[in-house]
C-alpha cells in the first residue's frame, strides 16, 4: 500500500474514533452526578424541586441522556458545538479563543524538551558509564517522576518569588508579544519536563545500541570525524525511536497543560476545561475532549509519516 493510501485510510478512521470519544465523554459527563442547574440550586435552600425542573427545562437539560446526545451530535454534524451554559457565547468561539494559548504552551514545552533532551541524550550515550551520564540519568528519572503541579510551584517559588525574574501572572499583552513569550518559559519548562526526560532516556539507550553497530565501526574506520559519525549517522538512526514517542508524549503534554495552566494562571484550553468540569459545562467539556482526541490521533498519524520518511524501508501493509 502506498503511503498516500495509508494516510487516507487513517484519516477516515478518525471519524469513528471521534464518535467513540464523544459517546464516552458524553456519557461520563452524564454519569457523574449533577449538572449546571443542580450546582446552582444546591446553593439555594429557597429553590423548590419544581423550580429546579423549570430551570432545567428552560436550559434544555431535561430529557434522557441519549436524547440530549442525539440533539448534540445532530448539531455537531452541522458544525454547531452548542453554547456555553450561562452565556450566549458559542463553544467554538471559546475553543478558538483559548486554543492559541495552549498551542503556544505546547510548542514551548516541546522546544524545551527537544532542546535539552537531544544534546544530553547524545552526551550520555557517548559518555556511557561516566559520572556525567549517571548524573543526567538521575536528573532524567527525577524529571519523569516529578508531578508537574509541584514542579510548577517550585519554579514559581525559585524564579518568581526568590529571583524575581518573572511575575506570577502573564502580562496583559497579545500572545505574540515578546513579554508573553518570555513569560511562557516557566510553564513551558514545567509542561516539557516529563517529555524531555523520556526522550533523553530513549535517545540514550537507542544511541548506545547504534554506537555498537557495525556501520558505526565502518564509518569510524573510514576515518570520518567522530562528530560526523555521531550526529550524521548514529543520531539520525536513533531518532526514529524518538519519533514513535512523539504521539504519546504530545498527549502527555496536552494532559499536563491542564494542570500547568491552572498553576501558572495561563488562560488556555486546560484551564477552561477544569472550569468547565467544575461548572458541569457539558458542551464545553465534550468539545475540548473531542478536540484533544482529534489532536492526539493526528499526532499519531504524523509520527507514522515521519517514521516512513526517516526510514524509507518502512512500508505500511
Amino acid at each position: 500500500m502506498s503511503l498516500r493510501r495509508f494516510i487516507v485510510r487513517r484519516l477516515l478512521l478518525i471519524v469513528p474514533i471521534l464518535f467513540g470519544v464523544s459517546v464516552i465523554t458524553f456519557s461520563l459527563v452524564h454519569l457523574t452526578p449533577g449538572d449546571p442547574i443542580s450546582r446552582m440550586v444546591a446553593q439555594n435552600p429557597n429553590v423548590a424541586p419544581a423550580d429546579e425542573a423549570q430551570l432545567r427545562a428552560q436550559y434544555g437539560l431535561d430529557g434522557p441522556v441519549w436524547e440530549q446526545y442525539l440533539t448534540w451530535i445532530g448539531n455537531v454534524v452541522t458544525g454547531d458545538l452548542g453554547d456555553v451554559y450561562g452565556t450566549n457565547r458559542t463553544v467554538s468561539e471559546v475553543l478558538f479563543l483559548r486554543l492559541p494559548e495552549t498551542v503556544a504552551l505546547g510548542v514551548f514545552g516541546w522546544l524545551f524538551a527537544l532542546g535539552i533532551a537531544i544534546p544530553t541524550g547524545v552526551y550520555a550515550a557517548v559518555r556511557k558509564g561516566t559520572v556525567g551520564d549517571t548524573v543526567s540519568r538521575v536528573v532524567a528519572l527525577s524529571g519523569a517522576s516529578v508531578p508537574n503541579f509541584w514542579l510548577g510551584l517550585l519554579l514559581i517559588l525559585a524564579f518568581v518569588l526568590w529571583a524575581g525574574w518573572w511575575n506570577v501572572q502573564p502580562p496583559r499583552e497579545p500572545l505574540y508579544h515578546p513579554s508573553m513569550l518570555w513569560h511562557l518559559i516557566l510553564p513551558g519548562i514545567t509542561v516539557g519536563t516529563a517529555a524531555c526526560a523520556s526522550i533523553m532516556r530513549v535517545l540514550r539507550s537507542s544511541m548506545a545500541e547504534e554506537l555498537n553497530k557495525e556501520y558505526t565501526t565502518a564509518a569510524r574506520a573510514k576515518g570520518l570525524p567522530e562528530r560526523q559519525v555521531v550526529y550524521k549517522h548514529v543520531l539520525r538512526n536513533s531518532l526514529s525511536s524518538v519519533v514513535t514517542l512523539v504521539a504519546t508524549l504530545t498527549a502527555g503534554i496536552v494532559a499536563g497543560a491542564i494542570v500547568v495552566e491552572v498553576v501558572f494562571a495561563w488562560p488556555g484550553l486546560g484551564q477552561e476545561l477544569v472550569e468547565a468540569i467544575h461548572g458541569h459545562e457539558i458542551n464545553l467539556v465534550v468539545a475540548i475532549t473531542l478536540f484533544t482526541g482529534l489532536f492526539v490521533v493526528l499526532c499519531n498519524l504524523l509520527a507514522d509519516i515521519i517514521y516512513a520518511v526517516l526510514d524509507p524501508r518502512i512500508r505500511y501493509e
Partner: protein
Amino acid sequence: MNQWDNRSSKALTRRQLLSGVGSAVVVTTAGCLTEDDEVSFPLGVQLEVDTDNSDRLEWTAAIAQMMESTGYFEVDVEEHDFDDFLERVFEDDYPQYGHVPFLSLSGTFNPESYCDSLHGTANRGQCCNLNGLGYDELDELIDRARFGTDVADDPQLRERRYDEVWHELAEFRGSSIITFLTEEYVRRAAVRGFSPYPFSEWTLKYALHSPSEEALTWVDRNAQRPAETDWSDYQEGGTLRYGIGANISSFDPPYSTDTHSVAAQSLIFEGLTTMDAEGNIYPWLAKRYEALDVQDIDRRAYEPYMTTVPTDEKGVLEFGEGGPVQAVAVHPDDDRIDDDEARVLTPEGAADAVDEGVYGMQYRYHLQEGVAFHNGEELTADHVVSTVERYENSDMSSQTFDSVLHVDAVDEYTVDIYAQVPDAEAERELPGFEIHALEQAELGANEIDPLEGEAPIGTGPYEFEEFEDGQYFVATKNDGYWLEENGLDTLEWYDGPDGFPAGPVIDEIDIDIISDDSTRSAALQNGEIDVTFGLVSSTLNEYDSDDGYIVDSVQSGGYQFFQYPVTVEPWDDHRLRKAVNHLVPREQIVDEVLDGWGEPAWTMLPELAHGTGTADYDALESELREKNEFDPDAAVELIKEVIEDRGYDSSVQQ
C-alpha cells in the same frame, strides 16, 4: 447568598476529576439498614463526608474518634466526591439509611437561614434537610418568627420568637452545629482602611466606601506600619488589585449566582437599599422608604387571580405558546409535581390583585433624583419596574418572587413594591435586585456580556473598562457618580462627619483571576495583587506574623454541621442525639483543625444574625452553651439511659 461552602474546592485537581467517576458506584451499594435489624450497642454508625474540604475530613475523624472512645459506637467514615455527595444526600431514601452526613452551609443576616434550611419540613430532600426531620410544631415556630402581621410590626416579638426556635432545636437536637466559619482576607499593608464584609460577594461594595460605618479603603503604596489609620488620612487615586479564585462567569445580574460574578458586578450595579457589615439596611438609590400597609393574608388570598396551568411529571409549568410566564406564586394547596395542574399567580394576576387591594405588604420607595447611569440615563421609577420584569424567569426568579408580589411606578420618582405575605424580612428581601439601565432592560437571558459587546451599565461608583475571560477585569471610577454629584447630604440618614468622601477614592479596581490557591498566594507575596481571600489556613498564620500583610477575619455566616438520622431507630431518641452532641470537641476543632480561624458554635445562631435572631445573645448563649459543651461523661450517662429505657442489647463493658 446561601451557598455551599466549598472554598477549598476551587482548584480542581485531576485526581478529583477522576475520582468523580469511580465513587459514583458507591452510591448504589452503600449499606441500607433493613427494618428488622436489632439495635445493639456498640452501635454501628456511618459518618459521611465529602472530600473537597480537608478541614472537614479532619474534624469528622475527630468526632468519630470521640464517639468510639466511649465504647458505645463503632464508627465508619465514608468519603465522597463533592458532587456525588450532593446527589447522594438529596436522594429520597437517604434519611432511611441511618447515616450521619457532615456538610457546611452559608447563611445570611436572616436568622431563618440557620433554622429552616436544616429543619423545616418543606426542605426535606433538598437544601438542606437531609435527615427527613419535620414536625408541625417546629415548622410553626419557625414560620411565626418571620411571617405574620405581628412580627412584621414588632421586631422585639420576632427576636423572642426566634429564641423559642433555638431552645426547641437544642432540646430536639436534630442536628449539631460544630463551628461557625470565618472568611479571612489577606492584604498588603499598602491597602488602608479595608473593612471586610461577611459575604465576599459584597466586600468590594462595602469596604471601598460605606458611609454608614465610615468605612473607606484607599491605597498608599508608601505606607508604613502601624496599620491603624483613620479614614481622614485617606489618599485619592491609585489602583487596587483584588485576587479572586474563579472566573467571573457573568456580568448579567439576574443570571449570576456565583460569588465571584456578584463581587465584580457589585462595583457597577446598585440597588434601592444597601447594608452595612451587621446587616442594617440603609436607603441608597431610594432616598427613603416606608411600609405603608400590612395585611393579614396568606397566599390562598390570591386564588381568584390565579390561572390553572398544566404541569408535567417533574413539576414544570407548561404555559404553552408565548414562552414561559413567571409564576409569582403557586397555590399552597397545589403540588406542582404530584398534581397534573396547578393554580398559578402570573405577573398579570398579581397586578390585578394589587389593584383590588389584595397583597401582604406595601412598601413605598422614594428614589434619589439626579442619579445618572453610566450611559447617561437618569434613574426613574420605570427603571425599577423594568428591572424587576427582567428578573422574571431568570436564574434569580425563585429568590426574587418568593417575596415580591408586584412592583408599581407611582410617579417618576416613587415606586411601590408589594410583598406576597406579611413578612418580617421584607425590608431586606424585597429590594434584592440590581437596577438596570433601560437600554439593557429588554435584553434576553445572559445578553449582558462584555465578550459579546454588551458591557454592563449601572449607576455604581465604577464603570466597566475591560474584561479578559478567565484573566482579569478592570473597572474605572465613574466620574459622574451620583452621590459625589449630589453630596452626602442626599443621604437623609447619614449623620457622620462632614468630610467623609461621597464616593470611593480609588481610581481603578483590577480584579485578577487566579484559580489556584497557592499561585494566588504567590501573586500576593510577589506584589501582583493587594487583597485576596480563600487561602488555606496554614498560610494564614505566616501572613499574620508578617508585618507587610494584614489578615482580617470576619464571620461569614458559614456553619459546619452534621445531621442525625432522626427517623431511624435508635436515633429517634433525642437523648442519644444529645449524647453525641456532647462528644463534639468544638474548641479543640477550632484550635487544632482550623488553626484558630473559626468559632465554636455554642448556639445555632452566628454573630451575623444576632441583630434580629435573638432578644439577648448573651442570655441565649449562657442558657444553651451547657448543652453543647464537650462532656463525655454526660454523653455516656445519656446513652446508658437510652439502653436501659428501651431495653437494647449492649455488650459494652464499663
